[in-house]
């Protein structure tokens, strides 16, 4: 197989993900509704109760809506990644993943393409959310929107890798939703998505430590800083490292035999 074959396969996988995205419009709207409810309802209620002092990367006092917008962007990526992993588990056992795995190209490359394609498809959802958030006073500089694109992709890839790794060990599809409750919600709430880390530290040192250990915190901060045109070396290092770790672990753990054997033994 030459380089062109590798490129053809990547384009094919990406195109299919885009087509599926276009055909499943309800998926697009449901992905938008969730963060918008948080922005319009949750943030409105919390605005009065929670004051945000001047913190980096903001150079002035901000509303709570402005604070939680990067965390909600990450939330869109988180749900998309987990949903995508769910479909890969389902496909692994009975669907189109079998077609993918019968390609003569290396399995690791095909899985990487699938993860990248899923992360790319999530980007329009994030930008659609940011476009609506503009009407709520979330107005990052225009360059921030551009700079955030690779960071959003990296975060999507990290979360996709984590989702696929976790899903590789799930016994049955029905359990996936349960596992996600133990992954999505702790990841989201134990991060700086809703409250600044100093608030968490005030609440308790253990809570702060857990938030610092959560890769999602660093993804949120990376999105926040990049969206406002600032560099966050620590966050980019941690998110890049976690992406490499989670994607590698997901590729190693992915085994189409596993689901079949479990079904036989159960």
């Amino acid at each position, binding site marked *: *197989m*030459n380089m*062109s*074959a*590798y490129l*053809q*396969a990547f*384009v*094919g*996988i990406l*195109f*299919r993900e885009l*087509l*599926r995205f276009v*055909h*499943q419009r309800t998926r697009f709207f449901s992905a938008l509704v969730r963060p918008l409810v948080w922005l319009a309802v949750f943030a409105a209620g919390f605005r009065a109760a929670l004051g945000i002092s001047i913190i980096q990367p903001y150079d002035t006092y901000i509303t709570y809506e402005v604070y939680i917008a990067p965390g909600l962007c990450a939330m869109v990526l988180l749900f998309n990644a987990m949903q995508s992993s769910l479909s890969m588990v389902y496909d692994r056992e*009975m*669907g*189109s993943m*079998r*077609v*993918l*795995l*019968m*390609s*003569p*190209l*290396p399995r690791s490359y*095909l899985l990487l393409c699938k993860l990248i394609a899923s992360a790319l498809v999530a980007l329009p959802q994030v930008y659609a959310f940011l476009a609506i958030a503009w009407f709520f006073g979330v107005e990052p500089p225009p360059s921030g929107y551009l700079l955030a694109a690779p960071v959003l992709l990296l975060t999507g890839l990290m979360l996709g890798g984590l989702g696929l790794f976790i899903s590789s060990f799930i016994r049955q599809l029905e359990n996936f939703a349960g596992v996600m409750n133990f992954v999505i919600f702790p990841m989201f709430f134990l991060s700086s998505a809703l409250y600044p880390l100093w608030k968490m530290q005030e609440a308790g040192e253990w809570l702060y430590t857990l938030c610092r250990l959560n890769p999602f915190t660093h993804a949120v901060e990376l999105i926040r800083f990049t969206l406002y045109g600032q560099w966050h070396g620590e966050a980019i290092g941690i998110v890049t490292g976690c992406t490499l770790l989670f994607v590698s672990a997901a590729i190693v753990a992915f085994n*189409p*035999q596993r689901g*079949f*054997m479990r079904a*036989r*033994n159960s």
Partner: protein
Amino acid sequence: MPATVSPATLLAVEQLEFRYGNTPALRDLSFQLQSGQFHALLGPNGAGKSTLFALISRLFALQQGRIVLDGIDLERAPAKVLGRIGMVFQQSTLDLDLSVAENLNYHATLQGIGWRERKVRINDELTRVGLEQRTKERVRTLNGGHRRRVEIARALLHRPRLLLLDEATVGLDSHARTDLNRHVRGLCRDQGLGVLWATHLIEEIQPDDPVTLIHRGRLLANSTSAEICARVGAERLVDAFETLTAPRAEVNG
């Protein structure tokens, strides 16, 4: 000792063993398939047919034994072997939300076929299965027989040497079953394609078809349908099948 592989042999399965945990699924399974041959893999549900297909298509890793296609060892050069195999799975693997052409296009990209060549081949294969007028229709709108035809067209896009069909007629009415069977036999005759047709429906097998009969992962018989009947002393293959798969019965092919 591995069996001798003749030059005309397309697929050689040699002393294959496979276990799901502690449960054996295939036990010392060996047989050969020639180019241009319609070879039936017959066995009741749970015989090990799907496991064998998963091993040939490398969805499962080999535990013991050897699979050689066109003289190429699957373990040594998996990419070369996979490029020579077309597969129709027992459960449909088509994307129902995509059109017929989009499904085929996706498969072609995974096989590294360039876009110019892709268009020609998609048109050729859909014409061959009589669906060239329905390229833009979503797969969801097709009936079961047509979906199977799309899957066969897709499996042949990269010009494989061996076509694996795992219970491809399940869920089809008798007319569609006969039609599909005839179509695949035509591919063997006209293109020299080797076909391994897994089934538990005996009426799909003709007297001169080579048959590999497996039961609980073991090879019970491996010769033509007529020879198996003669050996068992049965008039019809269905009787021979019942005799061979009855408890304690075992005939070496």
